[in-house]
């Protein structure tokens, strides 16, 4: 599994603690399982530190995390850089008034929601998820944040699957990842 150039010594341990599960959720998919990373406190801490080091001087006021694995990485980053954490959720989970954005799945569509008032015009936002595949989910999150007049500074994921070209789908929004997986 290749990693970002510059090769911070922490990246090798992070990459090797991610477990690949073949044929999940369906045949042909090699699922990148971050739960084994979470069982390695040093590697998990290094993962968070790498993001925090990148973003702490960038005046990020919001970290938005995509349900559910974005909830694992986003809050520790938000706490360390002094930002708000905003959960982006599946429909009907958020109890207050929401705005919604529909996005495509392989078959059909899904909807992502964000609370009205969570993000303000002028907020500088980071969007976090464990992994970027096709980029559909991140695109929906970008749209929600831009709809309320905030700026998406970057999208950040632990893992990228470059063959699925999610990076291209983000348009002009930069993407930062720790580990790139070609399988």
């Amino acid at each position, binding site marked *: 599994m290749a990693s970002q150039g510059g090769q911070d010594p922490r990246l090798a341990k992070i990459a090797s603690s991610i477990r690949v599960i073949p044929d999940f959720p369906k045949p042909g998919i090699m699922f990148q399982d971050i*739960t084994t990373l979470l069982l*390695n406190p040093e590697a998990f801490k290094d993962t968070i530190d790498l993001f925090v080091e990148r973003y702490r001087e960038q005046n990020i006021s919001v970290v938005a995390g995509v349900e559910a694995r974005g909830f694992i990485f986003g809050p520790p980053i938000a706490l360390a850089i002094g930002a708000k954490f905003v959960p982006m959720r599946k429909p009907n*989970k958020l109890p207050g008034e929401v705005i919604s954005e529909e996005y495509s799945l392989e078959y059909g569509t899904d909807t992502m929601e964000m609370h009205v008032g969570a993000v303000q015009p002028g907020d500088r936002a980071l969007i976090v998820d464990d992994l970027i595949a096709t980029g559909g989910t991140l695109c929906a999150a970008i749209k929600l944040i831009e709809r309320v007049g905030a700026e998406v500074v970057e999208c950040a994921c632990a893992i990228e699957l470059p063959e699925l070209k999610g990076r291209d789908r983000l348009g002009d929004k930069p993407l930062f990842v720790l580990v790139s997986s070609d399988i």
Partner: protein
Amino acid sequence: MGAAENGGDPRLKAISDAIRVVPHFPKPGIMFHDITTLLLDHKAFKDTVDLFVERYRDMGISIVAGIEARGFIFGPSIALGIGAKFVPLRKPGKLPGKIISEPYELEYGTDQLEMHVGAVQPGERTIIIDDLVATGGTLSAAIRLLERFQAEVVECACVVGSPVVQGECELKEKPLFVLVEPHH
């Protein structure tokens, strides 16, 4: 035990005040305690995590188990703060590896809570985190999952809850720690 009483830690009032109550969600009669507003208050969110870390850091806890999805918001930061592993407890079909499953009661019907095989080892000292405890049904299922692998559940911890769980689920006599009680 609850912590938000007179004479309690001074950080608790801001934490309690930052939690929004949304009436009649998800259905009429339910006063839903919404922690998303707490997450918008950086100091109060940090204090929330710190209060749990201060409580658990010297208790030899090697596992923090968090219940999907709002337990994922608090659990990992606590795990990082005390040097423990984080174990997600999830709805069916989400965990990709070999799992064990426990049913629990909903108001109508049942649901399942799952954990990866191999996530916990016998004898590990664990805490279970969720944002809120109501009937205790989900926490009880979580306790059963961990005990099936002979882990020791030291305590259940929630941001919001009554210190004594009402209703049929008794948390198997495990201690329950909450930071703030439900607003009245």
